[in-house]
């Protein structure tokens, strides 16, 4: 799923400085799962905004709503009747949400309340880690089911580099050296021959490097 991190409340308060009617919009998708943008977090942010503004001597009106998802127009449509009552919209969805809201309601002043970080999953309760960089050409099967593009700091396809340090990446002891894992697993499984194959340079055309991407399902599109 898409993993995002809450922006510091200070940053959000600075963004909405001067607005008196604010709508906080959450999302029941990915950001609920990683506990940064669901209904609970909407209530928390709304309360925090009211307290902070009250402290400044201002009474602000803060609306709260959580949509099924902010990446489908049919749910963004649900804001139709209420959005004009507000001066600013703060979206807790990943980077897609605020943009969808902005597109559908061009007059609205939309602010992002989270920093979208990566595609990943939960590795333990409360901890999410990156697994996929969206390169557009998945070849994890070459690497024992692990992705070096996303999980090697240098995206090596013929790793490990000389900086692999007791199973950790030279960049930080908090980052596992994925090549250490790949090599150990494949050697243990007797797949040394696959490791000896020289993987050719990756085409980054299918990745973000090639430009913003679209995915079309022909049978479904008009």
């Amino acid at each position: 799923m898409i993993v995002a991190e809450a922006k510091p409340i200070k940053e959000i308060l600075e963004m909405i400085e001067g607005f008196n009617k604010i709508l906080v919009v959450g999302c029941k998708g990915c950001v609920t799962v990683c506990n940064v943008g669901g209904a609970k977090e909407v209530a928390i942010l709304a309360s925090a905004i009211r307290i902070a503004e009250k402290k400044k001597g201002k009474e602000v009106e803060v609306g709260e709503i959580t949509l099924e998802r902010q990446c489908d127009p049919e749910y963004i449509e649900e804001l139709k009747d209420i959005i004009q009552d507000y001066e600013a919209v703060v979206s807790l969805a990943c980077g897609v949400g605020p943009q969808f809201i902005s597109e559908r309601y061009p007059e609205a002043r939309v602010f992002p309340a989270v920093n979208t970080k990566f595609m990943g999953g939960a590795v333990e309760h409360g901890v999410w880690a990156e697994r996929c960089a969206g390169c557009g050409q998945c070849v994890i099967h070459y690497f024992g089911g692990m992705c070096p593009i996303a999980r090697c700091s240098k995206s090596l396809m013929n790793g490990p580099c000389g900086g692999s340090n007791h199973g950790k990446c030279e960049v930080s002891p908090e980052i596992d050296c994925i090549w250490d894992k790949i090599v150990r697993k494949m050697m243990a499984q007797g797949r040394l021959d696959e490791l000896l194959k020289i993987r050719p340079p990756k085409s980054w055309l299918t990745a973000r490097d090639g430009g913003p991407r679209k995915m079309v399902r022909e049978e479904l599109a008009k």
Partner: protein
Amino acid sequence: MTEYKSGSNLEKVLKAGHFAFTGECGPPRGANVEVVRKKAQYLKGCVDAVNVTDNQTAVVRMSSWAACLILKEEGLDPNFQMVCRDRNRLAMQSDILGVSAHGIKNMLCLSGDHQRFGDHPEAKNVYDIDSIQLISMVKKMRDEGKFLNGEPIDVPPKLFIGAACNPFAEPLEFRVYRLAKKIAAGADFIQTQCIYNMKRFREFMKRVVDMGLHEKCYILAGITPLKSVGMARYMATQVPGMDVPEELIKRLKEAGKKKAAEEGIKIAVEQIQELKEMEGVAGVHLMAIEWEHRVPEIAKLAGMLPRPKVE
């Protein structure tokens, strides 16, 4: 008439069967030509080729190719280094043609330290291709006269291709295979990370020889003289794959603060002499960064002088 891949001095020396001795020069943090010329003076006549690092530890310095040109002017055989961190395949091929056009004949292909270590940690990550893909690419350009995309190059570059090897880094079991991979990709010579544990290195070289890798590629062992106990401890704990035996640290300690550097040089000289007799080792790469002025003395004590002249 011997067929050379590049005709560099290093290649000629190795091909003639001599024990090679290379050095290293770190470019300055500015357009300071004088400091490069000064370093060149120390190294002249002591080494067969000089590595010129490429934004080492991800810290901005004068570019490797530029410093290489200065060294060439000073009569040295530069070993141009290129890391994968800062350049994409276009810039790489472009620079490869550029250095070859200027008569630089050796090239070391490296991954490069991640930019998070350096002085511009917020920079965009390139790593378009990795070091092994870079070796293959240079070989393709030189031997097939083709760019990475298969199109013809009008005057192919002539480079003696080098790569690095860190024999004691994890995962240990795989290191000799990674070396094999680099050689299969096209590496003509290898320079290892600096060695302190000679016993373990000898075991590593045995595996290399068993696999016949020393016949396909010239392997130069890296040596960095220890200047102090502090430096030894730093190497032992902060540098991946570094194995600094306690006996060496003990020797430095016992020599006392003032004499530690002398002892470090003594150790390096002993190592060089031992490596000269080790099977599979074609030479030594001396990394005496910011200590270039001691290189002539080390070369002399280790019996590396005079350097051979091969026509």
